């Protein structure tokens, strides 16, 4: 089976600075990967390359066997609906309730009917935010925001979940809870890539990903290496 994400000789720049080059990567369907490395190494850039938000300076990226270079803007938007993305600074529409924010992907897909609303409410229950469904995003704590972002990322049941420092703004207990949610999604067959500098989180994943341990990728000094699971 083809990889969910495949990089071939990919290079990325941030302004005039080259972040990395010649990067190869393959994420098998249903796998769980951590992406770690020092700040500024390009973890967020790599996540954004996977989601088609930015284009590489060189090389080829395929997601679900689709060459991103061949997609126009609408094609990239359609692809993004098959990918759930959680950023450290989760963006929300502050004039809408948490439930309405989680329902946004359904709305832009024209699927926000009574069944869709039930799905949103079930999902909010799953991430433990039922009681906060009516709240506005600015009223949420950091952990609640991340869980709401995760709920929004998976509402369309995407096959690939990209999380960029999802535990960056939350305490240890909440980061464990988010990790458990991501692990549960992985058990459902979703491919998960989590960018994090939190080595304790990676170690803790052994407790929740018992069937298939997560693989750890390290991006540093412009190269991507497999760090193994012995961190």
């Amino acid at each position, binding site marked *: 089976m083809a990889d969910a994400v495949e990089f071939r000789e990919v290079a990325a720049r941030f302004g005039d600075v080259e972040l990395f080059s010649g990067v190869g990567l393959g994420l098998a369907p249903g796998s769980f990967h951590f992406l770690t490395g020092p700040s500024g190494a390009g973890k967020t850039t790599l996540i954004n390359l996977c989601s088609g938000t930015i284009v590489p300076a060189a090389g080829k990226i395929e997601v679900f066997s689709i060459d991103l270079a061949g997609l126009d803007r609408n094609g990239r938007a359609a692809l993004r609906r098959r990918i759930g*993305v959680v950023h450290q600074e989760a963006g929300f529409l502050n004039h809408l309730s948490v*439930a309405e924010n989680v329902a946004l992907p359904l709305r832009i897909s024209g699927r926000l009917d009574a069944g869709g609303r039930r799905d949103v409410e079930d999902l909010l229950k799953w991430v433990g935010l039922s009681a906060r469904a009516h709240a506005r995003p600015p009223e949420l704590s950091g952990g609640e925001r991340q869980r709401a972002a995760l709920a929004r990322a998976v509402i369309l049941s995407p096959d690939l979940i990209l999380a960029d420092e999802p535990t960056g703004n939350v305490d240890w207990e909440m980061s464990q809870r988010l990790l458990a949610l991501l692990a549960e999604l992985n058990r459902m067959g979703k491919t998960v890539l989590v960018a994090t500098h939190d080595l304790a989180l990676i170690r803790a994943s052994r407790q929740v990903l018992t069937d298939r341990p997560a693989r750890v990728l390290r991006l540093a000094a412009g190269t991507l290496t497999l760090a193994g699971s012995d961190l």
Partner: protein
Amino acid sequence: MTPWTKGGQPSLVPASGFTAWLVLFSATIMGFLVVLFLGLGLAAGGVADRWQRDLALSATLRFPADAPQSDLDLALEVLHQTEGVSEARQLFAQDVESLLRPWLGAEQLPRDTRLPQLIAITGTPDWSGVRWRLQGEVPSAVLDDHGQWRAPVVKAANRLREIALGSAVLVGLAAATIVALAAQAALAANAQVISVLRLIGARDGFIAALFVRRFAVRAFVGSAIGAACGAVAFALFDAGDTPLPVLGQATGFQGAAWAVPLIVPAAITLIAALTTILAARSILRESS
């Protein structure tokens, strides 16, 4: 408590306050001005057409003051036999004096004033044929079909119509400019909304439609109010003692022309929608 907004789905773009009022207010003024200019244009066109038509129906046959009555009788006979002439009537001294009174005053003309002798003709004959025949049979007669002064007057009325319609077009362009600026401001102010929608896979068309719908609704409401005010102003203008009797006799909106105030809001809404689409496409392309 339900987490869902009652009464349908909430707008994904938050209310923008000042920009909303700016577009609404501008569209109201634009709607009013466009209806006013189109009304004036139609009125000027009506005047031009009526002068053209009325003056083409009449002509004057002029004889020297000392021309014998037999020449006038012969000319009348020729005219009565001419196809298309509905009336040919000799104007006597008192008729000529009454024609001159508005120009020369009410006092009696000096007795030694040598006034030309005139025959007033109405109808739709071939005026060049009439002129040719009279030259052969009554050489002292000079046919004046009013063409010499009809043309510049009609030209002036037509020019007034062009200016009015041109002004309406300029107002439309001004409306497009204002909406474009407001749309750009709204798009810039909602960069966060656009970013979130993009993150979850919204197409540019979906994002643009959110803003297009908003501006189109505001433009429609504002221009409908303005156009209604313009139509009422014109109706009052027609009903009252107008200071411009010439225009008053040829009102801008008559019959089917009353559809114009209905079309104006649709046209301004279309302009607003197209302008917003162009502004949104440009900004979304730049920010991708």
